[in-house]
């Protein structure tokens, strides 16, 4: 069990007790300091670690892999909420909501070595070519200063790093030369039911790329079907960023856990000089380095920049444009489901095997890009059902048999357009366990996304009805929610007045400071972001390396 937190009984918050003998003092003569050990930070650290002295600081604990099954128990038992599985919550993770739309931030992230990939679903797709040119092609939002072609080789590398099981059967996906590193998972039984209905309607289904082993890969197990991928995969079949954290450490990187960075300091030459971080014993340290990569996720990254305000940068570090924290975006969920009068075989595994990108590129100024998913875990899981209710014995078994077996559902994600009034700021009067203002979320969603949710619902209901389902629920504009993808808050732009980082993800204002995160996405597309985060992180690492070599 880790010294940082217990997975025993009771809710664990973000515990901060000291006690174990861990050296959390700064590393002398570091070349690169990476803030955050999620996938972005871990990939940057791993890529640079062989040749450079790298130190990674993460706000949360290092979780003991031996506790994963105990965390799985938490995922199943009704007493524990999702944030309890990875010890999120408490004063460390306090936040405020000020917008029209409530944002459940602590359901949407994990703080600790591995970041939110400990909790994630693991669907990994490339953005479409038009996603990089949304302003020109669709009339919404700025274009990215880079194109699909710029990221294409990095996407292929990212797929190898994460270990993606996929197939080239998706006619709507952007062009690729090489196959995925692993074969796609076979379609599920319920996919075959959907396939008949979709064929009738002329709707295409294809495989979903999964960062999940369909065969042994990277010394990690293939999927064994625990079915609790989100929020925990006990087998290690689902990729999480501890893979790259460990690899970076093997190459010599230093990883310091429970070391929240509170402030970045700079000198008069617009260079970041140190990351000031706290440790559980109440000490504060300064980690100096030649280059800094901020990879603290889409909410904490702008918060850290805002917390680092100085006389020279009174509105926050790297915030000459005034855009730090603005344009906060997430993908919106659209779904529908019901029951069939036959068995649908749900909840055997916790991931999807089929999707539909057919409508994605119809997008224009009125309709956002969206994609559709065919659920493999519709309806209740019997084991979870058994733990709630006031029956047992034969009546419970009867209730489980009635409740399980014939559910069917579809989901989908819709792009949200960037807007300045959807943003992360610092709360005025609430601080975290270290006395620092907490992030305040103002999440605002425009009509284009809401109208597109309705369009996605129409198709979903049409498919379900063709299937003969009794449609029992529709998650439309009034019942939508976020997919937990935090994007846009330090956007990328060639123009220093329009964005926080340049096309290399280097901050416009500070020469030796990069941001690796979906916070740099100018627009979000509707594809899950992490493969793009990974591709950008590898590209950031190359740029850092090149500039360190040049001495710039």
């Amino acid at each position, binding site marked *: 069990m880790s010294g940082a937190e*217990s997975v*025993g*009984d*009771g809710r664990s918050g973000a515990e901060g007790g000291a006690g174990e003998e861990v050296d959390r003092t700064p590393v002398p003569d570091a070349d690169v300091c990476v803030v955050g050990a999620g996938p972005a930070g871990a990939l940057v650290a791993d890529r640079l670690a062989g040749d450079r002295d790298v130190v990674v600081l993460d706000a949360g604990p290092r979780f003991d892999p031996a*506790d*994963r*099954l*105990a*965390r*799985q*128990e938490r995922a*199943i*038992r*009704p*007493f524990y909420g999702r944030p309890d599985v990875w010890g999120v919550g408490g004063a460390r993770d306090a936040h405020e909501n000020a917008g029209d739309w409530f944002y459940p931030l602590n359901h949407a992230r994990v703080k600790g070595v591995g970041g939110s990939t400990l909790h994630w679903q693991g669907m990994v797709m490339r953005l479409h070519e038009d996603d990089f040119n949304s302003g020109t092609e669709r009339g919404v939002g700025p274009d990215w200063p880079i194109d699909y072609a710029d990221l294409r080789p990095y996407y292929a590398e990212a797929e190898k790093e994460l270990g993606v099981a996929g197939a080239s059967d998706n006619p709507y996906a952007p062009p690729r030369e090489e196959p995925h590193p692993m074969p796609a*998972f*076979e*379609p*599920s*039984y319920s996919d*075959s039911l959907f396939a008949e209905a979709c064929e009738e309607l002329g709707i295409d289904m294809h495989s979903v790329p999964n960062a999940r082993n*369909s065969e042994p890969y990277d010394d990690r197990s*293939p*999927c*064994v*079907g*625990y*079915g*609790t991928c989100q929020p925990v995969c*006990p*087998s290690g079949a689902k990729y999480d960023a501890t893979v790259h954290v460990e690899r970076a450490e093997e190459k010599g990187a230093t990883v310091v856990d429970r070391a929240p960075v509170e402030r970045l300091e700079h000198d008069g030459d617009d260079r970041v000089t140190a990351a000031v971080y706290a440790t559980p014993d109440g000490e504060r340290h300064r980690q100096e380095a030649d280059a800094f990569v901020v990879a603290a996720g889409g909410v904490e990254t702008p918060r850290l920049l805002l917390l680092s305000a100085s006389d020279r940068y009174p509105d926050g570090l790297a915030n000459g444009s005034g855009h730090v924290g603005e344009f906060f975006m997430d993908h919106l969920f659209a779904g529908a489901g019901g029951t069939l009068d*036959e*068995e649908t*075989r749900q*909840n*055997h*595994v*916790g991931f999807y*095997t089929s999707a539909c990108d057919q409508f994605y590129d119809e997008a224009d100024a009125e309709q956002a890009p969206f994609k559709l998913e065919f659920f*493999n875990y519709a309806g209740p*899981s*019997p*084991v*979870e059902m*058994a*733990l*709630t209710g*006031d*029956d*047992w*014995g*034969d009546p*419970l*078994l009867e209730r*489980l*048999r009635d409740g*399980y*077996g014939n559910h069917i559902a579809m989901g989908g994600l819709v792009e949200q357009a960037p807007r300045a009034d959807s943003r992360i700021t610092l709360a005025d009067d609430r601080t975290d366990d270290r006395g620092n203002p907490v992030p305040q979320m103002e999440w605002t969603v425009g009509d284009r996304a809401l109208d597109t949710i309705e369009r996605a619902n129409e198709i979903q209901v049409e498919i379900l009805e063709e299937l003969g389902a009794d449609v029992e629920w529709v998650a439309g504009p009034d019942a939508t929610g976020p997919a937990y993808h935090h994007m846009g808050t330090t956007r990328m732009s060639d123009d220093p007045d329009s964005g926080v980082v340049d096309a290399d993800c280097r901050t416009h204002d500070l020469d030796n400071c990069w941001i690796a995160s979906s916070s740099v996405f100018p627009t979000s597309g509707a594809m899950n972001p992490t493969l793009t985060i990974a591709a950008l992180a590898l590209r950031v690492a190359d740029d850092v390396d090149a500039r360190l070599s040049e001495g710039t």
Partner: protein
Amino acid sequence: MELTRRDAAAALAAIGATGGVALGVRRATDDRGRPGDGEADAAWDGEGAPDDEAVREAMTAAARVLYPEEVSGIDAFVDRFLDGRLDGSAHAEGVRAAVAEVESAARSWYDAPVAELSAAERDDLLRELGADTAEEDPGGTAAERVRFFVVNELLLALYSSPTGGELVGIENPQGYAGGAESYQEGPR
């Protein structure tokens, strides 16, 4: 449908217990105080914390009302599951304390240990304790703790095992590492 050793192993795996340590402890106890081995006088007298044997008897008795009629092999299943669960952890202490609550209620309301009550009485006892309507909470009221450490503990063990899943129609229930094939297969 018979619960097997494989079911107990699967239920333990679903919650991350391995039982190695506890098995050693168990053997020492076996030599001394298992009912039926001629030394029943070592049995727990209802005072203080119940020993492992008393926990096993009470939990098995509870499982016989919590599990559906059509399952057999309950005693061995619960016994084996507890081999892994009574591992000296805080959770094991929670199980022990919750069993003490159940036993104390059985003795004061029915004048007998829970294992000696009829099935109907055991059912009534758990309901009178409030464990049917309570939501599980390891640090909550007595009813919530009994729900967590006795009722849901045993229901989780059963329904995350392959046989428990099959009873409901899913041979690879959540928590059981039943492979990545069953999701591809049609109804059986």
